């Protein structure tokens, strides 16, 4: 299992928690008040409640059910039902590796997470979920080009075999759009989209709308009963 992108950094401000899926693992991702990131198995060791429903207090994540607090190292540091107890370091969540690299959150469930470098001035656009197979989503993305908002187009530039990263570039090579793919299940795919270069707000909004157009195409493909008919669309 390699490192997966699970979200855009901008969508997880400090003191928030979200859910992510990497392979078969259900994961809670959260930031403390200082911005420190953690990624844990999404299950409170106490009674099995999903920690992604919890709340952040300082540098701890608390489970919504009984308020057990866990520090960023995953170790339980407060049990409200036993307020005088100093919990032992052995009560802890299952901790995964996470990094924030160039505005993207990367998680690995086996070993240290390693992110990917993005063009230096990359700005986050959005994360968008496709309800179709990764192949259908990827085909639709590769088959389209991004309008840059001022009449120009960015066409597909770089697709490494088996890669979860697509890059679109403008003709002059100055503007680019990077799409990082995450596959949470067989029938869904999340595209984390960033834009590098000189983009106006309207241009960024244009990229967001383009991603919805591609999604409509990809999901239509999925709904064709026989996949051989794809060319007719």
């Amino acid at each position, binding site marked *: 299992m390699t490192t997966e992108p699970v979200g855009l950094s901008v*969508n997880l401000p400090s003191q928030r928690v979200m*859910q992510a899926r990497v392979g078969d693992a259900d994961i809670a991702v959260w930031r403390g008040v200082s911005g420190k990131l953690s990624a844990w198995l999404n299950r409170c060791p106490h009674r099995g409640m999903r920690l992604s429903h919890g709340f952040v207090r300082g540098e701890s994540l608390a489970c919504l059910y009984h308020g057990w*607090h866990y520090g960023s190292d995953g170790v339980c540091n407060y049990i409200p039902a036993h307020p005088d107890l100093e919990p032992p370091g052995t009560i802890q969540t299952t901790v995964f590796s996470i990094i924030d690299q160039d505005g993207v959150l990367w998680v690995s469930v086996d070993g240290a997470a390693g992110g990917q470098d993005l063009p230096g001035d990359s700005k986050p656009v959005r994360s968008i979920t496709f309800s179709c197979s990764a192949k259908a989503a990827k085909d639709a993305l590769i088959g389209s080009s991004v309008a840059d908002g001022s009449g120009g187009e960015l066409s597909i530039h770089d697709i490494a075999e088996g890669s979860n990263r697509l890059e679109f570039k403008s003709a002059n090579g100055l503007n680019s759009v990077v799409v990082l793919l995450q596959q949470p299940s067989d029938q869904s795919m999340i595209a984390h989209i960033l834009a590098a270069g000189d983009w106006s707000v309207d241009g960024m909004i244009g990229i967001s709308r383009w991603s919805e157009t591609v999604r409509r195409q990809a999901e239509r493909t999925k709904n064709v009963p026989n996949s051989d008919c794809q060319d007719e669309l």
Partner: protein
Amino acid sequence: MSFRLYNYVLSGNCYKVRLFASLLGVSYESIAVDFHPGQEHKGEKLLQISPAETLPIMLADDMVLTETSAMLGWMASKFDAGKNWWPVNEPTKITLIIQWLGFASDLTLTIGEARLHSMLNRDVDVDRALAGGKRALRLLEARLTEQSLRGSQWLVGENPTIADIACFPYAALAPDAGLEHDDYPVIRNWLYAIRSLDGFVTMPGIHEVHKLRDTENTL
């Protein structure tokens, strides 16, 4: 008392009124209605007040209101002196607010229906309601994404309006119907922003953010 509300605790539509009243600091008279299991809103006593067979019903200024958009508009006009929630002097904004108030009804008809089925066993076309709910959440995510690219976390303009209040309950209650928020990161942050407003109140299915209390001395 400023108005009377015929109220049901599990109704997202009734909650719009409870939430907005709390945000505005307005007190009101609440009359509990046994919507489930008693179907009291279809009983003669309530039909005498409003034959629409819907909840909530608001009695305000000699009016009988059954549409939540009208209730929110009335409350904002009456109690929000700063005209922030319903900016009547700004034509573009109020036009967009009306647009999103209409969209809020779509949320009720899709997510609200699916929730009635998954929670209270009501007989509805659940596949259709869920598909519609997913479509509505995608539209909301797209709008909030564009707003955030413009630098705002609210549906219309730079401040919360009654459009946010109208769309909040059923968007927040989507998991009750099996539509999780995980695929909608910008909606998730918008929900958090509303939950963090001064005067916010919860309803079953929408938890509070559990900010640290002054009285607590742990950690």
